[in-house]
């Protein structure tokens, strides 16, 4: 007996990468980039290890934040029993399934601990009362334990959801959706706390004297923007490549665009809230972070970030036709993806180059290396799976979705 639930609304061949399709080569291209980037990093990094570690940290944070944003997106989709986005959920699942790979890519950061973090030097702590006060939290063993704990939580949640969703492709069991929905609420809480603390550990502690209570939310907001920017680019690219072109419609692009716009505004709201209170109160232990970013050429980067991460995309993405057209949405997404990178660069690099903005070839090499691993892992999974959760009970609803 078949019921409505068992009916597959999509033929599997509509949702797989066909043999001979150019996207089948992506894992090899990604691996090649990773190798090339890795070799360049090794050569240039040997001469300038400090620059290498900072560049690698930015690249690592950039791709990790995309994966964490994807995990948030899928969890919230389950928690709210969202219907519209089932057709793009597998893209998110594929992106966050790279988290175990990211766990390996943090190794250079851990090796470069002494080059990156002032608090890791006992002699610096010894002559600094504030660092002594923070030492119970900011010390090397606890830092390593926390990093392991974060990746343990993230990998556990990521694999649970990835495997659950893939398993449902085979069984079509609606109980999987119910089970994952029940788990989504607690998982969001764990993810929110670990993400916030991870951003404090890895970014904020670069300036160990600084205080900001909103920083975790700021990182989370940026991650969400980054993921929706990536999702809009990937969804449009897939349609152009003849994958999912019968599945992802202008209606889905419209909703991705709305979320991209909304979280871009949210990022601005949080970013300004952080700046505003610090500027207003004018306390030295809070203003140091902004002072470094408001002097010399870093001020130019700060103003560029304000304009490029908010003012321009705010007006660009506001209109309905822009979000419903693949090309215009992908341009907005690609732009915000770059701005998300600029945001992370702007958070990390003034610690290394306090005198001013100073780009390095290692920035590019690290980005190519980490990005290559990211693309290789995600596209390798894409080849082995359906590009859509084929037997999710809400797939039909998502396929027929229309904005009012």
């Amino acid at each position, binding site marked *: 007996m078949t019921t409505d639930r068992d009916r597959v609304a999509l033929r599997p061949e509509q949702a797989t990468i066909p043999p001979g399709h150019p996207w089948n080569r992506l894992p090899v291209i990604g691996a090649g980039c990773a190798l090339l980037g890795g070799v360049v990093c090794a050569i240039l990094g040997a001469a300038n290890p400090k620059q290498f570690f900072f560049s690698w940290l930015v690249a690592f944070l950039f791709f990790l934040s995309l994966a964490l944003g994807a995990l948030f997106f899928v969890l919230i989709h389950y928690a709210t029993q969202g219907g519209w986005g089932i057709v793009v959920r597998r893209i998110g699942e594929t992106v966050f399934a790279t988290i175990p790979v990211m766990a390996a890519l943090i190794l250079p950061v851990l090796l470069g601990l002494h080059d990156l973090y002032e608090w890791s030097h006992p002699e610096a702590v010894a002559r600094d009362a504030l660092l002594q006060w923070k030492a119970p939290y900011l010390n090397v063993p606890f830092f390593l334990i926390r990093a392991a704990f974060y990746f343990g939580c993230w990998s556990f949640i990521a694999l649970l959801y990835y495997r659950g969703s893939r398993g449902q492709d085979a069984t079509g069991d609606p109980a999987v959706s119910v089970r994952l929905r029940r788990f989504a609420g607690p998982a969001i809480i764990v993810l929110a706390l670990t993400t916030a603390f991870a951003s404090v550990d890895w970014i904020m502690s670069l300036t160990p004297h600084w205080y900001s209570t909103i920083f975790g939310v700021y990182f989370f907001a940026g991650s969400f923007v980054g993921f929706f920017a990536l999702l809009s680019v990937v969804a449009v690219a897939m349609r152009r490549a003849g994958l999912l072109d019968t599945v992802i419609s202008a209606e889905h692009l419209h909703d991705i665009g709305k979320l991209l716009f909304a979280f871009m505004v949210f990022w601005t709201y949080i970013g*300004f809230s952080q*700046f*505003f209170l610090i*500027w*207003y109160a*004018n306390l030295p232990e809070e203003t140091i972070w902004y002072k470094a970013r408001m002097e010399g050429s870093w001020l130019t980067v700060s103003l560029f970030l304000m304009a490029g991460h908010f003012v321009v995309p705010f007006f660009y993405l*506001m*209109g*309905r*036709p*822009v979000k419903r057209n693949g090309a215009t949405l992908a341009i907005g997404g690609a732009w915000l993806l770059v701005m998300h990178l600029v945001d992370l660069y702007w958070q990390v690099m003034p610690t290394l180059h306090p005198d001013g903005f100073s780009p390095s070839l290692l920035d590019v090499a690290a980005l190519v290396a980490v990005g290559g691993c990211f693309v290789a892992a995600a596209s390798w999974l894409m080849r082995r799976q359906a590009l859509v959760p084929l037997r999710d009970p809400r797939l039909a609803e998502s396929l027929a979705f*229309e904005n*009012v």
Partner: protein
Amino acid sequence: MAFDSLRSLWTKPLLVNQLPSGPYYGILAEFTTPADLYHACERVRDAGFTRWDAHTPFPVHGLEGAMGLRRSPLPWIILVSGLTGAALGFGLQWWVHSSAYPLVISGKPLLAWPAYIPITFELGVLFAALGAVLGMLGLNRLPMHHHPLFQSKLFERVTDDAFFISIESWDPRFDASATGKLLKSLGARNVELLES
């Protein structure tokens, strides 16, 4: 294309009485199902009528497409009113703080723009919301205390279980008997000619 919706702002001016002046208001046709109404709307649209409307007890998905409606110019009204509010909010604080009553507060410069952002944001949202509500009322010619459609006994069921098309008499293609016949042929259960 994005500016298409703006056109109706001058083809159908605001604040002008929008009722036909002749002896008849127009024709009202009753349909029994949303599907009948939907298909009838497509035909009325294709017949080239421009001054007509559909009335349903609940939203019918895609009806605006079947009726061939253009997008509402309301988003543009909201954008302009929101920007006006933001500019007023910023301008007021700027003027007060640096020219009308200059006062140094906690060592901040006289043009302390970060301090102005919350009020600028709030006034932008307030004006945008007011623009949305008032613009919607204006575009719909509301409040309107009486409408010729309310003469019809049939029309009382529009909030219950009946679906209507009304074609107004000042539509260039309107003809009391031919339009009635057209609506009948589209599956209308009842067709009624309404006086002004």
